[in-house]
């Protein structure tokens, strides 16, 4: 292009294009801009060759570096396990009571257990074991199946009424199903209330005491002190699971409700179970 016309006014070259007498000025992209652009193109091509990029008919171009985000994740998980190994080895080797004696292991367990608890247990038992209606508070000192480290571990591992062979299991009969009469149930409830001095009908309570001796003592104990072998709650304390009013108790005697807890062995590994058990033990009620 020999004779490029230069615009008089602006001093800029024209492109030679002309529309209705209007000529186009040649204002090219700044050089640095273009070069940046070319570099990004080159980069993109290199990237496409090195990394997984294009789909093919039945698979995809895997890239010459063999990178895959799945492999990266696996390596990261392996690295994590490797980093944890010194701890997890000790956890696997020691019984839970020994772990809790070692201050460092205890702290590790509490930290890990806190997270495991929040992910798995908190939906029912509340954050930090604060409990929820019909789900027991884990922070108090009342335990259905026992509150020392080993007992907690067993409960977590095999669950309650979970259909696992080792699960904690028991069932309170439905006394309302033609087993006891309505008045008998009412009387025995009155008697149960007398353990916590909330009964107002001494006569009914007295009548109820006979029923209690017949039907309830085996699990709940003579003074209503409960029985951990059967997960039978203490009836003489201030912690009531399904309510403490007369109606609540009658309801429970007539047609009892039973809590169910899964066997966590199927979902958590051994180390996690130990950690979370130690954490639960630390919530305030551990024995």
């Amino acid at each position: 292009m020999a004779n490029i016309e230069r615009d008089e006014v602006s001093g800029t070259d024209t492109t030679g294009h002309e529309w209705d007498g209007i000529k186009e000025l040649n204002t090219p992209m700044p050089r640095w801009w273009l070069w940046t652009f070319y570099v990004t193109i080159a980069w993109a091509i290199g990237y496409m060759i090195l990394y997984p990029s294009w789909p093919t008919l039945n698979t995809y171009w895997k890239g010459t570096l063999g990178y895959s985000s799945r492999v990266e994740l696996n390596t990261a998980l392996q690295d994590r396990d490797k980093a944890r190994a010194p701890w997890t080895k000790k956890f696997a080797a020691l019984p839970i009571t020994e772990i809790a004696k070692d201050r460092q292991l205890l702290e590790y367990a509490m930290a890990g257990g806190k997270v495991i608890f929040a992910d798995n247990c908190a939906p029912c038992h509340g954050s930090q074991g604060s409990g929820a209606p019909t789900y027991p508070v884990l922070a108090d000192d009342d335990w259905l199946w026992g509150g020392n480290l080993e007992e907690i571990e067993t409960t977590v591992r095999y669950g309650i009424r979970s259909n696992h062979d080792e699960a904690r299991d028991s069932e309170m009969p439905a006394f309302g199903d033609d087993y006891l009469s309505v008045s008998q149930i009412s009387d025995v409830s009155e008697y149960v209330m007398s353990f916590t001095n909330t009964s107002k009908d001494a006569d009914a309570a007295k009548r109820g005491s006979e029923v209690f001796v017949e039907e309830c003592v085996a699990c709940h104990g003579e003074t209503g002190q409960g029985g951990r072998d059967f997960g039978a709650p203490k009836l003489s304390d201030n912690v009531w699971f399904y309510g403490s009013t007369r109606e609540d108790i009658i309801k429970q005697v007539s047609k009892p409700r039973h809590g169910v807890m899964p066997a966590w062995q199927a979902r958590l590994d051994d180390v996690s179970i130990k950690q979370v058990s130690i954490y639960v033990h630390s919530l305030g009620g551990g024995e």
Partner: protein
Amino acid sequence: MDNTPAEHHVPKTPSLYETHKKVYPQKIAGRFRNLKWKISGAIMAFYFLAPWIRWDRGEGQPDQAILASMNLGRLYFFNIEIWPQEIYYLTGILVLASVGLFLATAMAGRVWCGFTCWQTVWTDLFVWVEENIEGDRNKRMRLDKAPWTFNKIWRKSLKQLIWIAFSLVTGAGFLFFFNDAFETTINLLTGVGTYAEYGFTALFASTTYLLAGFAREQVCIYMCPWPRFQGAMFDEHSLIVTYEAWRGEPRSKAKKNNPNAPVLGDCVDCNLCVSVCPTGIDIREGDQFQCIGCALCVDACNSIMTKLGRPGELITYDSIANQVARSNGKSAKKRVIRKRTIAYASLLFAVIGLMAYGLISRTELEINVQRDRSPMFVQLSNGDIRNGYTFKILNMINVPQTFTLSVEDLEGAQMTVIGLAKDLVDTVTLDVDGDSVTTFRIFVRTTKDALDEQFEDMHFVLINTATGERIDYDSRFAGPVR
């Protein structure tokens, strides 16, 4: 470069940017040049040497005197050790620095820019290298125009190499304030440094290289925010570099035995003041924002005046007020104490005092108690109410300590502490490791009847068993809704 003579230019659209004119500062000797080298030397000595000073802090503690360790989360300064939550000391230092800068500026103008700014110090160093390899101003200008002969190639490459070396050392030097100097040096040199170490070295090296080697005065004129607002600190009594126009004008080329001498000013229009100026300006045009107050033009002019046997200080470090006085033939007097300087100085001393007080009365122990929010309280089977607390003790000295903990102002309060006190106790002994945070889980319980309100105020009392020092921590105890 477009060398077409001006008249043949077709009018152009005005550009948004000024075309860069390379500045070739000429070498000059003198009072201020000496002072500048001394200050530069001191600053560089601090920068490059300070991290190597050792300071024994005992077993397992870093032995570097000045260290801002990100890994350990500690800022070490000789025997002072700042924890992350005390970062306000850093704020204090920054406030101190800015007030100090204001005061210096109000008194003596752009002394920061001219003498101590990193940009100035490192640019000086780079120009010095350039000067020694490529020669003084005129030689350098000629060399830039000259074709690429062997002479030019080796000089230019050698200069770049030395610049890069200086930059790398500067870049690495920055790291030494954050990581152990010896370890980091070995890491960097043996190729086992982390990406972060190489990355930051490269980052600071490249900024040094670009800013001191190439951007130079452009940094001060276009990039740096400081010149834009420092005008607010000036007044007519602040010292600035100024040209005594009343004495210098009308300027004329020096001629001996000039018959018209009486009517001519002292300035001989030698242009030396322009040649030495690192920002390439002519101070005789008056005070300009590009002037960084380096006072090299004072040295330049004085050298000429001495040679000609004329009175010196035609370009001088003086205040506007004094200049006005002198040009009117009145005697000038320095006014250092003014409202502005008093204000800045008192602010400065106030901040220094506050910081000193903070440092002296700084506790080496901090307690942090968090009452459980969930559950707010726990009702126990015997009817008692229990609250849980996470108790943190920060022991900032490197010596283990022992405390006894008890609860006050809560009727019948007793405690259990996980791992320490299984059964209910009134006081419990807590062992705290040196230089660390120790966390305890504490359960406080009392009977339901002891509570008058839903939230009772109570406090924990911690007594240092060795010194008997007592620390109270106010907290609360929650019970059922009343």
